[in-house]
């Protein structure tokens, strides 16, 4: 017994170390603190209480890193907001476009604008549909707001449009309210002018202008725009009627190509009559 006590006293450090190591491993085998139920709750509660009691002390390092994290988050959110705004606008446009086929008798072919050219006062747009999709030269293009332009060139998978805001534009149009006829022309920037309307005829500001049935190129009754000003030029019998196009060409992204081409019989007849008249005048 004495020998055992001597042994313990002599090697007490090693015995203690072994005991503590065994105890540590035993505690580790219990597992995570979360397995200890109520004990954990007490510890976590106490720590939480202490931390909340001193939470008012600012931590400059943490504030700096938090600030950086918030800036990054802000940037991400700004991008998200921009995306969602874009999606809302796109959604709204597409919804309007979806409704459009209800208001026309013609088949409509949807197309996205893949390019725009605005050089030498000639505004063109390229769409992602072509012959393969049934697009042909002379077809007119519209969107939910109104007349966009006319197809002037087609390849297998693309087509080029002459936009309404083009110096070559000539559209037979009429004032919707009074059925007064005229010809729409582009006068630069975003201004159309309704010409050949005598001063005596009734045209008012905000009157809607639509395509006329006289037009051989465009289907009738497609909205072109609204009258924004009526000017009476000196020494002229006609109004100068300024029309604001209803289509916003700057944000134009999608459109419909109207599957309706001018009637060749009508065009040939009109051309023939025109030539005959000229011949008579010459004779």
């Amino acid at each position: 017994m004495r020998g055992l006590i001597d042994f313990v006293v002599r090697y007490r450090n090693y015995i203690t170390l072994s005991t503590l190591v065994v105890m540590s491993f035993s505690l580790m085998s219990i597992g995570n603190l979360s397995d200890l139920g109520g004990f954990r709750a007490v510890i976590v509660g106490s720590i939480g209480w202490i931390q909340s009691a001193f939470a008012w002390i600012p931590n400059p390092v943490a504030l700096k890193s938090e600030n950086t994290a918030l800036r990054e988050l802000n940037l991400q959110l700004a991008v998200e907001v921009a995306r969602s705004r874009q999606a809302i606008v796109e959604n709204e446009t597409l919804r309007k476009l979806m409704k459009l086929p209800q208001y026309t008798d013609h088949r409509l072919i949807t197309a996205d604008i893949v390019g725009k050219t605005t050089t030498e006062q000639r505004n063109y747009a390229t769409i992602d549909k072509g012959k393969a999709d049934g697009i042909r030269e002379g077809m007119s293009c519209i969107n939910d707001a109104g007349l966009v332009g006319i197809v002037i060139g087609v390849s297998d998978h693309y087509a080029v449009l002459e936009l309404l805001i083009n110096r070559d534009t000539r559209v037979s149009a009429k004032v919707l309210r009074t059925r007064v006829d005229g010809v729409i022309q582009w006068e630069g920037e975003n201004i159309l002018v309704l010409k050949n309307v005598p001063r005596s005829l009734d045209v008012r500001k905000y009157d809607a202008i639509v395509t006329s049935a006289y037009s051989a190129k465009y289907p009738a009754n497609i909205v072109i725009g609204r009258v924004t000003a009526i000017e009476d030029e000196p020494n002229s019998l006609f109004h100068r009627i300024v029309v604001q196009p209803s289509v916003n060409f700057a944000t134009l992204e999608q459109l419909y190509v109207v599957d309706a081409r001018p009637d060749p019989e009508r065009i040939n007849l009109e051309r023939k009559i025109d030539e005959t008249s000229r011949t008579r005048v010459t004779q």
Partner: protein
Amino acid sequence: MALNFDIRRSEYVTNPVLRYIGYGVIALLLSVVHVVFLRFMQVSSVTPDLLLIFTVFIAIYEGQFTGMIAGFLCGLLFDAISTDVLGTNALAKTMAGFAAGYFYRENQGMQVVGSFNFLLIIALSGFIHNMIYSFFFIKPMQVSFWIFFLQYGLAATLYTTVTALFLMLFVNRRRD
């Protein structure tokens, strides 16, 4: 008043029961400091281990046996407040106390703590402590032991050693 203070201080030093109660109170205070204030000293998620410094201090001042017990209890306290796996820090700090206990010199504790040797002992104990701790810490993770140890273990050892410098300087000045 100063006389009373000296009497109380000497009583505290000579009376082991009071001394051990004092150690317990200091350990609890250090735990609170760890929970509340150590976030201010955080450098790349590495903090100094104040309870390890305290364990080494006790081992040098009281001896290997007390150092081990203190290490075990401080480790348990640390496991509890850090919501770690219970026993991990207890084992690591027991081993640290055991290692530091080899540098115990009877009645020369404060001299050792006030010298640069204290920093070397802290560095050695910290190295052992963090080796053991890293080994058990990364066990459930798919992380290389050496990468983790070199990244965090050595950094924590260095930071703890630097922090112990303040205790060394404090004791050194008091001794003078």
